[in-house]
């Protein structure tokens, strides 16, 4: 029973961080900062979610598979994130910064995205 509650707590907090990463994907202004949301909040979200599932499952073969998935996410996530960020830099994409948008708007991040028509 305690294990089920623990698993539920882990999964709910995992879902929270995954939701935050989706909201971030929509709200943040450019590629660089969007990678932060997608590639990162996801790290903890996936750890919590898969950890919760593993606890819920108990000691079965499925748990071993879940832990393997977790391991591969932890290995692949930084590599893929870095690949996207690096290709953005190499192709010459300017990072969105706070200074540029001081020309107009009232100083919120959303003004800039509105101006860019995003």
């Amino acid at each position, binding site marked *: 029973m305690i294990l089920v509650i623990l698993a539920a707590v882990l999964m709910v907090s995992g879902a*929270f*961080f995954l939701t*935050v990463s989706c*909201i*971030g994907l929509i*709200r*943040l*202004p*450019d590629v*660089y*900062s969007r*990678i*932060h*949301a997608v*590639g*990162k*909040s996801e*790290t*903890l979200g996936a*750890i919590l979610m898969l950890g919760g599932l593993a606890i819920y499952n108990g000691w079965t*073969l499925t748990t*071993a*598979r879940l832990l*393997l998935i977790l391991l591969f996410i*932890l290995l692949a*996530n*930084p*590599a893929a*994130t*870095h690949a996207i*960020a*690096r290709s*953005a*830099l190499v192709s*010459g994409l*300017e*990072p*969105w*910064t*706070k*200074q540029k948008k001081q020309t107009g708007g009232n100083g*919120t*991040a*959303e003004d800039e995205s509105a101006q860019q028509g995003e």
Partner: protein
Amino acid sequence: MKKVANRYRRERLTIVALEFIVLVLFWVILSGRFQVKYVTLGVISAGLVTFLTRDLVLSVFPHEAERDSRFFLRIGRFLAYLPWLLSRIVIANLQVAYLVLHPRMPIAPALLQFRTGLKRNLARVIVANSITLTPGTITVSLKDGRYIVHALVPPSASDITEATLQNKVGEIFMEEREEPPASHWAYSIEELEE
């Protein structure tokens, strides 16, 4: 002379055999079937993969000359480093969640350039991956110990600018402690230093 050659051969065999065992275990875990048919297929596939990747695996593992008693000490220290990294990931995740959910979204992204004194490539890569795993910072570029990091808000890079992260990784490889690096903040690609 022959003795050394024999030991070298035995060591290579051990590494390859370990790879084979890990691959078979991997197969069994993923398939979940224990009938002779499936396990035989797994053993054949694992053998084939072991045969095809033997050069790669042997080149990754350190040779006997480089591997001393410190090799296992390093693995131990690396495992001790993981909980610290996990705690940083949790803290940084909460910060990013706050930034993203804040109605005005108070982000101030910038590119941070710095150098590291770490000499080993593996140490540099661990630093780069740790930066990327910690929310709020991404390693955009790593070349010859020079990093370009994208930070969502400058304070989220404090572990790097204060060299906490570098020294934690340096401890694993028993490298010298380094001073906080001279960090250069850039707000566009032109401002990046060559």
